[in-house]
């Protein structure tokens, strides 16, 4: 029974050069048609994974701050009707910090949004231009101020480890960011994803990504500064004042069920992985045809699900509860992780076992993918 609902709004005014998310630029969007289709997709999920009130809803994108507040309100009303809302439900919306969108923040708050995640991305104009953002630094900060007035909880994103970025520059930028007083920060290192304009730029030698060693230094710096400011990392790239963590995202990382609706959305419910059609038009057509937007639905074997649970859970500072995972997937702990590798990784200071919990240490976090490659029991991974 899912207690988290993800709603994907796939439209952007402009595609950012680093972004490989499912986002699309369209001249016009028929909001009434989209509302009907999203409601239908939602009903399909509620029928399969309803029964418990929702603890969180997340509007992601694309740029969901482009949604008319009335549409957001209608979708929330339908979700409440289908599942019911738990006390203190967290309802997050990703927003662009432009003046146009900031003007709609009041309406969105009224529609029921109580948390925003603002795509600030950088605090200086040159970096924002490099990242292909439509706002400049001042506009972003003004939008943040509006958000902080309108919403109970505010988080914002920054992209760092940009080409040539010096530790002193990042230190200054992050200090300013921390001084802005939000209870949550998502700090992502720039990664060059395939099929993005940045990937082409790098291939053509227009710029070179920051090397791993200096990037690792920036990562350490980030953790030290956020911890000192009272917003320690609770996940690889996410930092929060205790209690201010994104409850919705914790659902993913703790590998609990969630419904995902809208184009390209993924879901996990009752051991089944769902994926919606990615292209907006195809998704719309699928909903019209079959009453939901699912392109692929596959049952996950216990080993596969266990591997996913480890991949996600070890991103968190709290780590995973091994005996609990073992019970959940009926796989003994010795078959979840490679005991010999676990010991080696612990000796190297990358892992710690505390009671039932297995955690990746601060030292291990920047090399988590390599650690997972060693640690996850080979029996869980299809070759």
């Amino acid at each position, binding site marked *: 029974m899912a207690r988290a609902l993800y709603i994907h709004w796939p439209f952007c005014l402009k595609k950012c050069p680093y972004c490989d998310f499912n986002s699309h630029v369209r001249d016009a969007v028929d909001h009434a048609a989209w509302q009907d289709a999203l409601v239908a997709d939602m009903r399909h999920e509620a029928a399969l994974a309803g029964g418990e009130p929702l603890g969180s809803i997340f509007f992601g994108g694309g740029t969901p701050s482009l949604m008319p507040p009335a549409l957001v309100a209608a979708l929330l009303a339908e979700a409440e009707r289908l599942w019911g809302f738990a006390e203190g439900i967290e309802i997050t919306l990703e927003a662009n910090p432009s003046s146009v969108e900031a003007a709609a923040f009041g309406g969105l708050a009224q529609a029921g949004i109580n948390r925003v995640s603002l795509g600030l991305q950088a605090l200086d104009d040159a970096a924002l231009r490099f990242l292909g953002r439509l706002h400049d630094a001042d506009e972003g900060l003004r939008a943040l101020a509006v958000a902080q007035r309108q919403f109970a909880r505010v988080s914002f994103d920054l992209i760092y480890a940009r080409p040539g970025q010096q530790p002193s520059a990042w230190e200054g930028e992050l200090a300013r960011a921390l001084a802005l007083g939000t209870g949550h920060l998502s700090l992502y290192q720039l990664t060059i994803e395939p099929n993005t304009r940045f990937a082409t730029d790098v291939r053509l030698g227009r710029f070179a990504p920051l090397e791993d060693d200096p990037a690792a230094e920036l990562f350490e710096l980030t953790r030290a500064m956020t911890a000192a400011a009272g917003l320690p990392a609770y996940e690889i790239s996410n930092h929060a004042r205790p209690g201010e963590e994104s409850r919705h995202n914790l659902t*993913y990382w703790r590998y609990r069920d969630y419904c995902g609706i809208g184009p390209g959305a993924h879901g996990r419910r009752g051991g089944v*992985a769902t994926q919606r059609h990615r292209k907006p038009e195809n998704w719309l057509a699928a909903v019209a045809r079959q009453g939901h937007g699912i392109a692929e639905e596959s049952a996950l074997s216990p080993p596969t699900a266990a591997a996913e649970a480890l991949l996600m859970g070890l991103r968190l500072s709290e780590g995973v509860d091994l005996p609990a995972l073992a019970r959940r997937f009926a796989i003994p702990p010795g078959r979840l992780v490679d005991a010999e590798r676990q010991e080696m990784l612990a000796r190297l200071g990358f892992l710690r076992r505390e009671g039932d919990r297995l955690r990746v240490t601060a030292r291990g976090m920047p090399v988590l993918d390599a650690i997972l490659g060693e640690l996850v029991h080979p029996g869980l991974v299809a070759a």
Partner: protein
Amino acid sequence: MTDLGLIRNFSIIAHIDHGKSTLADRLIQVCGGLTEREMSAQVLDNMDIERERGITIKAQTVRLNYTARDGRTYELNLMDTPGHVDFAYEVSRSLAACEGALLVVDAAQGVEAQTLANVYQSIEHDHEIVPVINKIDLPAAEPDKVKAEIEDIIGLDASDAVLTSAKSGIGIEDTLEAIVARIPPPTGDRDAALKAMLVDSWYDPYLGVVILVRVMDGVLKKGLQVRFMQGGTQHLVDRVGAFTPKRVDLPEIGPGEIGFITAQIKEVEQARVGDTITTVKGGADKALPGYKEVQPVVFCGLFPVDAADFEKLRESIGKLRLNDASFSYEMESSAALGFGFRCGFLGLLHLEIIQERLSREYDLDLITTAPSVVYRLRLGKTKNEEAKTIELHNPADYPDPNRIEWIEEPWIKATIYTPDEYLGAILKLCQDRRGIQTDLTYVGGRAQVTYELPLNEVVFDFYDRLKSISRGYASFDYEQIGLREGDLVKMNILVNNEPVDALSLIVHRSVAEERGRGMCERLKDLIPRHLFKIPIQAAIGGKVIARETIAALRKDVTAKCYGGDITRKKKLLEKQKKGKARMREYGNVSIPQEAFIAALRMGEE
């Protein structure tokens, strides 16, 4: 039978790409051996590898009937010989089956080192040599200059060299007439006891082992009980014939003739090249001269990339060996690479051919360890053991160094032929490889240099380096000149403080440090960063002579990972696992398989 006076047996000597196969095809065509439609390009090179590389590995013969301008019909036996030094013994037996040779030289390229080696061999067999200058219709053709080269370098009269373009069909009849007029007919006595030389043999899935023979005296017929004088076995001849190039059965093969027999033999090992075939009853009492047991000179380990393929490798090697008795193999186990085989080859090309056939014809992914030569070691007396001399094929078997009194290594005489602008670089290469220059001569813008070199300095990448520093223009040939004592030591490579057996090698002390440093540097680039720092050391005994460190991995993490990304993360894990399957683990360090060979390549590309 054919009148001896109407038989001509000849081979074709040519450097790679000088047009040997094309010329052979033309001769076959003109004599009506095959119709235009049946001619697939280059009939004689059967194996894919032979065609692709333009080299001949197995000897082939073609019997042609040529009606000459004198009105008489001659039986021409064209012997296509292997063209590489690795197969020098096979070449010598093929040559012994002939009375003459066509020396084919490219009108634009001129004489090359490989041509020289074969032509000298042919001269040693007292062959009548007919120079043929091919590709005369190329714009860059300089037949007069090439004629002068043949006269200056080889010392043959080239004034009446035949001018041809095999590709365009020019001069083919002239070539045939020259064969008839200038190559002497064979001699032989039909009534003497049977003496037939075993020229080559191969395995045919329908016929069993097919044996190529040259009858010296007597007659070979179906139903004859024959004896192999060196092998000591007896067989019943059940088929006699020749290739035209189609296989045709004949009633007999008479003296002076070349043909094939089958005798229900299942393994080529029983039909050794150079053996003498005679009759069981009333046979010859003396075998033909020149027989030699072939000895592998280069050894390496072959291991399956996927350990599960070991049985498949065993089977495949067994099948290849059916057709090639000149390579040897025995099981080997390596701490790093698991189970595999230690294989012996006639030379580096032979090694490459076997390796390539295993991967191509049997679809096997292989790890090849560093090639090693055969060393001779004298071990002193111990409490429990007498002094003895041993042969060492595998650095892993290197004995306690305190017991070694001396080590000998094989040396070669290398002949290198090059445009003189590359000479400086080539001399340096040979010096770096402990070479001793014995001769250096210039002929018209080209240099011929002779070096004595230790074979172990040549087996890795000498040929590749030579080709690269001379932009492909230098040619190289070698012959073995025996064993010499050397100050040789075993060098171990330690990765994360553990010796990697597959990377250990035997080197001369004077080059050990440089070689060790080079290997450590290359391994540093070849082994990916790990979660911990990895020392890489080269050591002789307990003494470290070179060291590098691979820094620990500092960043390897997916920055952004929400619900939708799980699938992609999982793929990453699958990719990691697949990648690991192609690596070997040593002291917790995963070494990619290409590192085992690449680490040994010396010098910069």
